[in-house]
């Protein structure tokens, strides 16, 4: 069981509800192949703007909005660039190209913006293309000044573990979480490792190392990163369904609380999850099913089959509806109470594929 919801979290959730009552409305931000950044009016179920990202093909990977909802950052150009697009004008206001000289450098999914919007963090994997041979380099985080415009160079870099897939900045901006084999906590300024929440190295008796792969940044509504994990109980017989356990990992970006708890025997694959910012015990996961999981009771609440595979899911600020996207070029809308499908948003054009589904307020 996770601990009782903190007063701080309640206050925070209340704040979101208050903001939902204000004129600001929810918008969904995502990418479409080959080079589209798409802004969607969530409640209107309609595309508000499509912006073409320069030199972006063949697709758009991770998408991160600025905290003020004015700029969308996207990993593009075969993961070798990040482009910042003004969501009103469509102008490219920021661009960093990672590769150059004999270095080919790819962003491996992980990207986040500091809470004040001033810095952009990207996880990078370099290789030197030498005459007749390649040389793999150490992975690192590059930090950019978001006001540097087009042609930005990192203001600082620091090492980060290989196989990092998610970068998330804590709410106070002091910590950078690099989530891969473990959650490595880095000082967002110095890059110094200041803590670790073990995943692969959890060392639990009678459990195998858990398997986690999550590349979807879907924590910003509840300020809780969540991801499913799979583990095998070695104290159970191989033919016992209870030997194969699914659990939910949550990392609270406000409090640093980190929890991994099993909630069901393995039944279906879940690619990514999102925490409800209002009923904060509810987590929703997608792939070929939509699952609703209670992380206080550690149990599956409900599960429905989806019309097709969706990789990504996000949630409205009032916690009432879900936006399942990624994979193809439609976003399915579901009621968080009933899991009934209550809408669909068709995006003409290319597939979203691995692109993120972000929700921002404008």
């Amino acid at each position, binding site marked *: 069981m996770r601990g009782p919801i903190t007063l701080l979290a309640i206050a925070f959730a209340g704040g979101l509800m208050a903001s939902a009552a204000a004129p600001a409305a929810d918008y969904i931000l995502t990418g479409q192949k080959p080079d589209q950044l798409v802004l969607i009016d969530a409640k209107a179920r309609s595309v508000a703007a499509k912006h073409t990202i320069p030199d972006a093909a063949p697709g758009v990977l991770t998408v991160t909005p600025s905290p003020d909802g004015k700029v969308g950052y996207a990993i593009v150009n075969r993961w070798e660039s990040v482009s910042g697009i003004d969501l009103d004008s469509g102008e490219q206001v920021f661009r960093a190209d990672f590769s150059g000289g004999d270095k080919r450098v790819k962003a491996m999914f992980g990207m986040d913006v500091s809470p004040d919007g001033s810095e952009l963090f990207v996880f990078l994997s370099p290789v030197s293309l030498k005459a007749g041979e390649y040389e793999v380099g150490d992975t690192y985080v590059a930090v950019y000044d978001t006001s540097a415009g087009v042609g930005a160079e990192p203001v600082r870099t620091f090492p980060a573990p290989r196989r990092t897939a998610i970068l998330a900045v804590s709410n106070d901006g002091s910590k950078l979480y690099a989530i891969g*084999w473990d959650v490595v906590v880095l000082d967002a300024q110095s890059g110094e490792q200041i803590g670790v929440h073990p995943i692969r190295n959890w060392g639990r008796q009678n459990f195998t190392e858990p398997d986690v792969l999550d590349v979807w940044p879907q924590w910003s509504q509840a300020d809780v990163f969540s991801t499913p994990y799979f583990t095998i109980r070695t104290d159970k017989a191989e033919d016992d369904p209870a030997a194969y356990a699914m659990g939910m990992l949550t990392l609270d970006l406000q409090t640093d609380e980190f929890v991994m708890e099993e909630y069901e025997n393995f039944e279906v694959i879940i690619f990514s999850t999102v925490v409800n910012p209002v009923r904060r015990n509810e987590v929703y996961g997608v792939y070929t099913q939509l699952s609703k999981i209670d992380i206080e009771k550690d149990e599956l609440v409900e599960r429905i*089959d989806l019309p097709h595979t969706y990789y990504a899911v996000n949630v409205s600020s009032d916690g009432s509806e879900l936006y399942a996207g990624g994979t193809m070029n439609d976003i399915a809308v579901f009621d968080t109470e009933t899991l009934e499908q209550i809408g669909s948003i068709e995006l003409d054009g290319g597939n979203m594929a691995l692109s993120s589904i972000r929700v921002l307020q404008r």
Partner: protein
Amino acid sequence: MSITQLSPVFTLLAVFAFAAPAHAAEPDELLNSKCSGCHARTDDGLQRIKDSRRTPEGWDMTLVRMAQIHGVKYAEGERAALIKHLSDTRGLAPSETAAWRYALERTPGVVESPEDATLAEMCARCHTYARHALQRRTQEDWLKLSHFHLGQYPTTEYQALGRDRNWWEIASTEVPELLADHYPLDTEAWNEWSAREHPDLSGTWRIAGHAEGEGPYHGTVEISAEGEDRYATVATLNFPEGRTVVSEGNAIVYTGYEWRGTADADGKTIRQVFAVGEDGNTLSGRWFDADNDIDGGTLTAVREGPAILAVIPEYIRAGETAEIAVHGVGLDGEVSLGAGVDIVETVSADGNIVVVRAMAAGDAGAGRRDVSVGDASASAALAVFQSVDSVRVEPANTIARVGGNDGPLAKVPAQFDAVAYANGADGDAGTDDDVRIGYFDATWSVEPATEIAAALDDVEYAGEMNTATGLFMPAAAGLNPERPYSTNNAGDLVVKATVDDNGSEVSGTARLVVTVQRWIDPPIR
């Protein structure tokens, strides 16, 4: 990546077919002119290139990658000339390819037997184990291959069997050591083989084999030299039920023994991937339709006798009389079909085919018999059986792929054969002493392999089994809105063969996974 960039891959095997005679320039000059811009010249050859040996397909994959990724341009005939030169000077000895020829032959439904568990997990989770086992490198160069892998495919360490371990740390330390240990550059076998003179293969060869899904065939091929290591072929092939095919083609021999041929047969283009025996007197391997490599067959060929190639049919039932044909070269003399099988009469004999009427005694025990004609002999070439006690389906596990439906890739079907077995002395089926009788006609069907396959009605959607021929044709590619989740026409099926053994039905099964297209299909998968 555009189709234009990909196209070298799709035409890869065709290079063997349309290879022009040796390029005018000396091969070493050509190699230097194409490669030394990036691969530095050293006293003992070009950097990297001097540190590895490969099969013709392996070298071609490298040459294509150099074109795709590094922009190397080949004028007509240059790529073929480089494959030939590299394979001849930096190839693998016959003993070094023997265990892995299925990958070159594109044999369907092979479940590999990795030599090393670490390499199986680190390497063979993405490509065949054979792919690296068909290369030889220095340890330093194996390490460079690890760098290439992660540099080119940076998601490798995020995938299943990548993210559960410190993949790069293992790939850059333990793996090059293991690979250099198993597959070193310098070997006795290669030193000995590369110093040999290789025989001219011209002459008349007798051939026999099993056409997958059809049955035994035999024939003759005239091979004539057309320049160094280049041959023209004219074959006459006799398939079951009187189907006769005359096939003309040509071939190149690489590394002294790697026969790569192309022939036209029945309107199809047939690829041949054969190995010449070390004495230059046998050929063995597999041929297949260039556009559909599951449509093929095995082949053995022999030039000089006396030698037995095949016995057709390869079995006789105890208590029955049947015509048995012994195929080979230089067949002259008394025919013996082994204990309990009497020769009633010789029907015909021409040195290549000896047909006898034979009678198997009613109490003849089940087993494989040695066959001889004069000085020619073949061990375990004829099966005697009382009854079919069990049936095994070959291949036991295989894959078919959806295709077509206006997509760029054709369907990849699956072809099955039913093989009858008699129980051995232990009286139990499925044990090591079972006697392989041979291929039987069967009635074919498919069933769901799992509860999920039943719930998703895979039998209805995944494709259609030809009940008479054992050919499974998968369904169309693409999302199917009729199915849950609009899923593809994928399926998980049990294939069932039912053999009629004189009125009693005997069945065997195989597992068939129908899955999505293979978008990247290199010569060595």
